[in-house]
C-alpha cells in the first residue's frame, strides 16, 4: 500500500493540481465543495475518486476539466498552466486533449450517433474522412455498428454511455475524465463499460474516474478517497498481497 507519488517528475505528469479550492455561495449560505486539494496523475495512470456524495468529487472533476472556475489553486495540464484560462481557451483545450463522460445527458439529442461521435473530431480540425474512419472503428469496437444513424433517444442507457465513451475517445485525448459513468446503469452495462475502460487503459489512456462503485474503483491503479472537500486517503490497491486463492477460501470466509 503505497502513497501517491508526491515528488513530481514534471515531464511524466499529465495532470498536476495544487491547492485547488471552490466554494459555492447560494442565498447567504456557503458550501465549501473543494478545499485545498493537491493531486498528481502520471501518464497512463488510471485514478479513481471515491467518497460519500457531497464530498466534492464531481466538483473536483469539473474543476480539472475546466467546466467550473476554481476560487484558488493551480492546475497544470501536460506541463501547461491552465487554471486562469478563459472559457473559450478551455473549450479549445477540451476538444483536443480531453474527453469527458458524465453520468447522464452525454449526447446531443438532436444529432445522430454518428454526428455525436464525430463532433469533437471536426472541432479539432481533422479531415472529415479521417474522423469518419475513426468513428467507424470505435463503433465496431464498441459493438454498436448498426446504430450510426440512430438518435440518442433510440438507445438504451448502456448504449448511450458507450457512445459517449466513443465520443470522448475519438480524438485520443491526453486525459479521459469520467463522472460516475456507470452510475445509472445496470450491472451488465456496467461490466461492458468497465471492460472498455480497462481496455483503453491497457492501451495507455490516462483516466480520471469518479465512482461510487467499489468494483469499478478497485480496477483502477490508484484509489483516492475524497472526504469533505479534501483528500483523505490515496491508495494503490494490490490484490496479490492478500485474499483467497480459490473459491473454497471464499466459502470459508463467509462461514
Amino acid at each position: 500500500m503505497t502513497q501517491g507519488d508526491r515528488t513530481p517528475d514534471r515531464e511524466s505528469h499529465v495532470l498536476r493540481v495544487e491547492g485547488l479550492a471552490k466554494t459555492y455561495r447560494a442565498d447567504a449560505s456557503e458550501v465549501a465543495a473543494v478545499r485545498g486539494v493537491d493531486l498528481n496523475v502520471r501518464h497512463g495512470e488510471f485514478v479513481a475518486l471515491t467518497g460519500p456524495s457531497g464530498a466534492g468529487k464531481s466538483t473536483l472533476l469539473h474543476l480539472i476539466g475546466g467546466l467550473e472556475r476554481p476560487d484558488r489553486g493551480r492546475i497544470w495540464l501536460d506541463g501547461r498552466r491552465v487554471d486562469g484560462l478563459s472559457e473559450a481557451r478551455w473549450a479549445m483545450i477540451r476538444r483536443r486533449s480531453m474527453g469527458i463522460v458524465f453520468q447522464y445527458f452525454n449526447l446531443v439529442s438532436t444529432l445522430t450517433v454518428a454526428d455525436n461521435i464525430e463532433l469533437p473530431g471536426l472541432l479539432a480540425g481533422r479531415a472529415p474522412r479521417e474522423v469518419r474512419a475513426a468513428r467507424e472503428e470505435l463503433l465496431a469496437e464498441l459493438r454498436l455498428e448498426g446504430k450510426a444513424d440512430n438518435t440518442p433517444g433510440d438507445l438504451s442507457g448502456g448504449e448511450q454511455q458507450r457512445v459517449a465513451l466513443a465520443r470522448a475517445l475519438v480524438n485520443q485525448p491526453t486525459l479521459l475524465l469520467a463522472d460516475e459513468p456507470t452510475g445509472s446503469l445496470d450491472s451488465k452495462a456496467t461490466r461492458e463499460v468497465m471492460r472498455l475502460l480497462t481496455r483503453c487503459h491497457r492501451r495507455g489512456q490516462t483516466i480520471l474516474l469518479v465512482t461510487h462503485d467499489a468494483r469499478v474503483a478497485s480496477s483502477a491503479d490508484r484509489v483516492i478517497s475524497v472526504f469533505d472537500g479534501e483528500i483523505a486517503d490515496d491508495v494503490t490497491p494490490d490484490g496479490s498481497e492478500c485474499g483467497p486463492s480459490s473459491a473454497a477460501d471464499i466459502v470459508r470466509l463467509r462461514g
Partner: protein
Amino acid sequence: MRATARWAFADLRTHRGQALSIVLATAGITAALLLSAALLVYAANPWQRLFTTTQGAHVWLRTTAAADIGALRKLDGVSALSGPYRTEKVTLRHGADKAAADIRATGPTPPQIGRPRLAAGHWRVGPGEIVLEKSMATALWAQPGDTLSIGAGGAEQRVRVVGVAQTAETRYAPDSGPGISWASPSVVRSSAGASLPTGQTVGLRLSDPADTAFMVQRAVTAVGSDQVVSVATWQEARADAEGDNHLLGLLLLLFGVGALLAAAIAVTGGVSSRVLAYGRDISVLKAVGFTPGQIVQMFLIQHAALATAGVVLGAAATETLATRSPGQLSAAMTLWQGLPEHTWALPGTAVTTVLAIAAATVLAAWRAGRVPAIPAARIAAPGRRRMSGAARAVLRWRVPPALVLGCRGFLHRPWRSAAAVVRLALPLMMIAVALGAWATLDRIQHHPAQVGLAGQLTVRPSGLPDDQIRELLSRQPGIAAVEPGIELAALAPGQTETVTLRGLGTAARPYPFAVAEGRAPSGPAEAVAGQGLLDALHVTVGSWVRVTVGGTPHVLHIVGRSIEMEHGGRVLSTSYDTLRVQDASVRPSYYAPVLRPGARSDAVRQALTHASHGALEVRDSAAPAEQFTPMRGVIAGLVAVLALITLAELSTEIAAGIRNHAADFRAYRSIGLSPRQSVATMVTSIGILASAAAVTGAALGAWASRWLIDLQARHSGVGSGLAVPPSWAALTLLVGTCLAAAVAACVLPVRRAIQEQSMRALRTVQ
C-alpha cells in the same frame, strides 16, 4: 467552422417543421413589407404615377423656330423625343379670367412620349378646338364645351374646349410662366402673333434620369444656347407637385421602420425561447469543446439561413405574383417596378430585413453562450415565493382555483412578465397608431370642413352682378348660406415668396374656419393663420401682420390658428368684409355655398346650373378622395404585418409559458386539479398577459398616433389639431381580438403539454 455548420444543419433537419414555419413567416413579413412599400410609393407620389403612366419626358426644351432639333435626336443618352411641336405663346380668356398659355400643335392622336392623360373630354382636336392642361382649366374655370378666346397681339380667335388633360410637367400658376394647351396646327398657325415669335417645344426622354443636369447642358450646346428659350426638368416638375404629400408619407415610413423593429423584437423572443429549450444540449456541446462564440455562431448561421430563405422566397413571390393580382396592388407594383429606385430598394429591403433578424438573433443567442458547461446543472431558478395572503383568502372565497393559480403564475416573476407584456404591446401599439391614422383619414374624407378644406361646392361668378348671384344661391333649397370669398396672392414683409390671403364670410355671417388654437375672427381686422404662415413669418397667435397685395397693404391681427391643408399652410384667413374695408376694389372671386345637412353636392350643383341657365359655374371642390384609397391599402397592409408579428410573439410566449410551468402541471394533478382546470390556469395566465399587453398597447398607441400625426402636421405647415385618435369601438375590437387570439392559440398546445406530462408520470410509475 465545419463542426458548427454540421450541428446547425443537423439541428434544422431535426426540427424541419419549425424551420419551415419560420421561413414561411419571414417570407410573409417580407412580402407584406414590400407590398406596403409599393403602395406607399404609389400613394405618396401621384406625380411619379403620372410620369410613369404618361411616359413622361425628362427634359422639355422651348426653342426658337429655327433651332435644329435633329441634333438632339443624335445625342447619346437620349432614348426618345417628344415632338417637336410648333408652339405659340398666347393669352387665353374665359369670361373674366385670363391666363398666359403655350399652345402646342398636335396631331389627331396623343404623342407617344409625354402622352397627356385625359381627365375629361377627348383628344381629337379639329379646327377651332383646344385641349387644356388641368391646372389651366382650373385657373380659367373652363370645362369641355366652354368657349375661350385666344388673344395674341390683337386678333382674337374663339376656340372650344374639347378636353382636359394632365401631364407630368410643372403646373400652371398665375405668376410662374405660361400654362400648357394643345390645338390643331391650323389653330396654332392662326394664333401666331407678330410680336411674339413662333417657337418649338420638344421633350427629351433620357435613358439615365439621374444624369439630367449633364444632358441639359449637352442638349443646350447641341441646339445652340441662343436658340433656347426655356428649359424645364422633371425634377422641377416633381418638386412643384410634391409639396403636399409629406404628411402621410413620412408617417408611413416611420411605420415601416417600427414594424421592422417589432419584428426584430419578436425574433429575439423566439430565439431566446429556442435557446432555453436547448439548454442541456448546449451544455454537452460546451463540455465537448464548443466555445461560447461558436454556440452563438450556430444560432446565427441557422437563423440567417432561415431568414435569407424566407426573404428571398417572399421577395420572389411578390415580384412575380403581385403584378398578376387584382386591383390596386398590381398597379402599384407595376409602377414601383418601373421606378429607378426599385433596383436598389428591393435588395435593400431584403438585406435590411436579414440584417435586422441576424442582429436580433445575436442578441438573443448571446445568452446561449452563458449556459454552464455541465449538463446536469439546473439553470438557477429564483426561489419560489409563498402564496400571498391575498391569494389564500381569495381561494377561501371559492374563486375558481384555476383563476387564482393563473394569476399567480403571471405575477410570480414580475419583471419577466412585465418584459413579456412590453414585447407584446409594441406591435399592438403600432396597430393602434395605424387605426388612428385610419380615423384621421376618415375625418379628412368625410368631414372636410373640420380640417379646413373648403366646402363642397364653389360657385364662380361669370359676369352676373353680385346681388343676383346671391339671390340665385339663397333661393336654392339645398343651400343654407352663401359665403363670398376671395383668394389673393400677398407679399409679406421681408419675404420673397408669396402667401395666400383669403377672405371668406361676412361680418354678419362669419365663415366657420377650422380653428385649432385661439378663436375665429369676429371683429374688424381680425384673422386666423395657418401653421405654415406662423412659421414663415415667425409670428405667433396674437401678433399683428402686414401684408401687401399689389401695393395695397392689409394689416391684420392674428387671433387664432386654423388647420390649413392647402398652400402648405401659408394662408391668412379673414372675413371678406375686412378685406373690403381695407381695399375697396376687392370683388368676390368665388362663392362658397354652405349646404344644408343632408343635401347632396351634385344634386345642388345640377339644380344651380339649371336655375341660372348655365350662367353660373358650379364646381366640386378638390376632393382628395382618390389619393386616400391607396393609403388605406398601405395601412391595411402594415396592420397585417403587425398582426403576423403579434401572433409570432404570442406563440413564443405560449411556448415559454408551457416550458416554465411544465413542472407545475404535475403538482396541480397531485393537489387534485382536473386536467381541464390545469388548462384553465395556463389559459388564464396567457389571457392576463394578452389583455395587459393589448390595453397598454391600445392606450399608448392611441396617444402616440395623435402625437405623431399632429407632429407631422405641424412640421408640414398644416398645423396640429388634425389628428383624431381611434374610436373606442376600434380599440375595444383590438383588445378583444387580441385576447381571443391568445386564448385560441394556447388551448391546444397547453392541452397537449398536460397530456404529455401525465403520460410521463404514468411511465415513471410503471
